[in-house]
């Protein structure tokens, strides 16, 4: 199947005066097929949100250099003018953000925040747009949607706000939806509902979904393919079952081992990944993860590991976890 989105060698560098560039995303490539759900996983600062913002072209124009290509249906989004991009945003691709309260305009009723997308991209008049907005709110599970059109964000609960944001993002039936930690700011019970809703909606609308999260639990329930990011590069990519079953990269392995499990023998210790992102080595001549890696060998601190693909799995590691382990 031809991919809907092809991200190729995406690089995002933040330039600061008098300092070397900070490279947040360093040659990331991945494809998303129509209707596919993929995950971008990693801890804070690994570049997953910046990747999403670069695809949406929402990064500030000044002080940021984005290179590579992001093709949506064969059109390079990075080559479009700002006004051409505005035509596509919200229509062909859209995004759901992390914090639903701050992501909604506090002084405008929810209804207008939904209808303005419909008016913009579908040219809908006021009344039909209100009708469509009420239907959308109903579809995302907001009770009494007609009345809610007039509500302000502060009058809704956190879960309702996130549902409203999802309704806004899906209003024009985009072919690609990017969800950036959509459940992080919510209660655990609400998290499950929102994930279920997203799963239903992408199935229903046929949209492809890029799920950005640090939570492997979210990935496990939703994504077919999982990309694990570390230090701005993809270190491992595989089908969900293979990744969870036999993680090969020591970072993926560590992430999985640090999740508490109900079926683990009692008394077993949780294994944390030692150190933090600040310990990273530069990718140019080493493996960024080496200082934190339990399997690091001499090679890791002196040579950049290359991304190698075998058997449908991409792996960037000099000394991967043996396939038979665990």
């Amino acid at each position, binding site marked *: 199947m031809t991919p809907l989105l092809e991200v190729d060698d995406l690089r995002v560098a933040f330039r600061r005066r008098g300092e070397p560039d900070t490279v947040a995303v360093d040659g990331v490539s991945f494809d998303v097929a129509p209707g596919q759900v993929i995950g971008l996983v990693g801890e804070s600062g690994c570049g997953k949100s910046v990747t999403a913002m670069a695809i949406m072209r929402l990064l500030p124009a000044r002080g940021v250099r984005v290179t590579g290509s992001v093709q949506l249906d064969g059109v390079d989004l990075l080559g479009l003018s700002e006004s051409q991009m505005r035509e596509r*945003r*919200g*229509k062909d691709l859209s995004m759901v953000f992390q914090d639903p309260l701050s992501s909604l305009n506090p*002084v405008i009723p929810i209804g207008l925040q939904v209808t303005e997308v419909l008016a913009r991209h579908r040219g809908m008049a006021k009344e039909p747009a209100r009708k469509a907005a009420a239907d959308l709110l109903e579809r995302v599970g907001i009770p009494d949607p007609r009345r809610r059109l007039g509500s302000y964000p502060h009058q809704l609960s956190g879960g309702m706000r996130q549902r409203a944001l999802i309704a806004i993002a899906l209003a024009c039936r985009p072919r690609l939806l990017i969800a950036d930690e959509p459940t992080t700011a919510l209660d655990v019970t609400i998290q499950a509902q929102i994930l279920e809703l997203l799963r239903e909606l992408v199935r229903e609308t046929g949209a492809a979904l890029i799920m950005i999260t640090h939570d492997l639990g979210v990935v496990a329930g939703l994504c077919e393919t999982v990309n694990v990011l570390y230090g701005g590069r993809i270190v491992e990519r595989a089908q969900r079952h293979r990744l969870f079953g036999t993680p090969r990269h020591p970072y993926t392995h560590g992430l999985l081992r640090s999740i508490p499990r109900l079926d683990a023998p009692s008394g077993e210790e949780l294994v944390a990944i030692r150190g933090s992102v600040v310990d990273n080595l530069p990718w140019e001549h080493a493996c960024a993860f080496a200082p934190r890696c339990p399997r690091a060998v001499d090679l890791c601190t002196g040579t950049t590991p290359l991304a190698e693909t075998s058997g449908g799995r991409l792996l960037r590691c000099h000394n991967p976890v043996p396939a038979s382990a665990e």
Partner: protein
Amino acid sequence: MLRFVLRRLVQVVPTLLLLSLLVFAWLRSLPGGPASAFLGDRATPERIAELNRVLGLDQPIFVQYGRFLGRVLTGDFGASTITGQPVLAEIGRALPATVELSVLALVIAVALGIPLGYLAAQHRGGPVDIATVIGTLIGVAVPVFFLGYLLKAFFAVELGWFPPSGRLSIDVDATNVTGFVVLDGLLTREFDASLDALSHLVLPAVALATIPLAVIVRITRASVLDVLGSDFVRTANSKGLAPGTVRSRHVLRNALLPVSTTIGLQVGLLLAGAVLTEKVFVWGGIGTLLADAITLKDYPRLQALLLLGALVYVLVNLLVDLSYAIIDPRVRL
């Protein structure tokens, strides 16, 4: 909303009462008094005592205050010790001039300040921004009277574009209806009078507007910068909305909240600035009344003017609070 307004209006009463007491005591604690100021070189202790007795100033201060309050309740603020005219009538005649001047100055400050501030924020760090920031610094730093004389020297004397002083040219025969000369001209269809009055207004209004303008620009700039970085603006952009929609509906509405507070506070400064501006442009308004009253220790007039100033300030800030409730649905009144 209505309850809020009523409650706030009721709160005005104790505020003014307390203020009147402070003003009353403070004026009388200043050295000198209306009698010595009035008599000047002819002042002898006997004459001062005599005049003080006539003015009732020989009574204990609480007796004076009691009388003052009693009269105020019947709407009588007493007579000016300078002119002998009832204070309220004097203020009534002077008020339109000052209101006209202040309103135009505020309109200039708001109409220029908000777009300029927005522009500066949008081009942060660019030449427009830097020019605006420097310009506003100068605007705040230059004293009103200095700028007033400068404007007068250049635009009135040198270029002759605008009249140097006064509210109307002598040869213009305008009918007085409301005391607002621009408005009167429109009402009586004497449009030449309106135009003449406007041309008199331009220079003093510009002089008076500079400081509020500079402050509004800076607050708008800071506020817009703040809002531009917020998550909901990112959401608005992620919807692909037209830049104009993002600007007006999402950025500006939120950015205006702190600006509206600032505008309210500026009204107080405007009243203070009016004193200096009126002096420079020989503008027969409240500022002139106040300046004369201070030099000649005109207690009744000062008391009335200070209370009037406080009342205006309180009412304007009530309006600001109401505007908050209109702009921001989270504010419940």
